[in-house]
């Protein structure tokens, strides 16, 4: 059972890393968006391994469908055929990017493994505890959705409401910003 879990984790992790690299290094922007969708789907697989079924489904609904459609539609408005030449930045910036990402990775590993000394599967720097038997039984019966729903409407109700106001503002703001300026168009037609 545990071997199978590890196998699935390795598979998903490999697909995530390869497709995330593809999303960045593909020349054609449509190819990189398709690669991004593969990343999102495999991340939802990782969520299922982490006992987060509600998150996995939300990941597919919000990221793999919603955000991708937004990206593709904005691509239709903006990209032209010769944008494929916009592949990588100029050499100084590319080198800087590799240096920054590498340094960050080394720093993160330094912290995770506690100065490269602690290679346990549950690092001592973090407090971990196995879930209770009753919790596992509950999760098998009803999933995490009731737990998250209860938390959202009791303890975290204020952030939840603020989030809804934020989303309303974003809807209005996005519509206003992306709208073509009608005054400008009238002026252009008058001068022509």
């Amino acid at each position, binding site marked *: 059972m*545990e071997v199978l879990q*590890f196998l699935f*984790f390795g598979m998903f*992790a490999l697909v*995530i*890393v390869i497709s*995330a690299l593809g*999303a*960045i290094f593909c020349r054609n*922007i449509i190819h*990189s968006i398709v690669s991004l969708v593969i*990343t999102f789907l495999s*991340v939802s697989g*990782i*969520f299922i391994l*982490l006992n987060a079924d509600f*998150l996995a489904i939300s*990941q597919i609904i919000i*990221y793999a469908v*919603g*955000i991708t459609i*937004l*990206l593709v539609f*904005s*691509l239709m*408005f*903006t990209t032209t055929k010769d944008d494929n030449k*916009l592949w990588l930045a100029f050499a100084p910036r590319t080198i*800087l*990017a*590799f240096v*920054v*990402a590498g340094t*960050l*990775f080394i720093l*993160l590993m330094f912290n*995770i493994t506690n100065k490269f000394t602690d290679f*346990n*599967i*549950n*690092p001592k720097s*973090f407090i*971990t*505890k196995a*879930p*209770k038997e009753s*919790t596992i039984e509950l999760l098998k019966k009803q999933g995490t959705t009731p*737990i*998250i729903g209860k*938390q*959202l409407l009791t303890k*975290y109700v204020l952030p939840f409401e603020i*989030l809804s106001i*934020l*989303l309303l503002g*974003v809807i209005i*703001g*996005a519509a206003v*910003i*992306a709208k073509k300026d009608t005054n400008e168009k009238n002026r252009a037609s008058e001068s022509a």
Partner: protein
Amino acid sequence: MELGLVHYLILVAILFCIGILGLIISRNIVKILISIEILLNAVNINFAAFANFGDLDEAKGQVFAIFIMAIAAAEIALGLAILIACYNNRHSIDIEDYTSLKS
């Protein structure tokens, strides 16, 4: 082989660094937005991992991951709206062309 917290943390570190790399390396604005999505996804995996190995009874990390998802959707909608507005001005999606603040 047993699956522990450190495997997820290493995966998240790799994914986050790929996101940072893409954020700096790309010239296309749409690709920069894609990199930001990869970054937010990495953070989401981290939250879910700590929720699994820390407090599965309350699943606080998963609640925060839901918040991050909503904020990511808001961010991408606004970012793309700004991109379209800029494109109407400049007719280019090359980040190197947006230098009018440089004196």
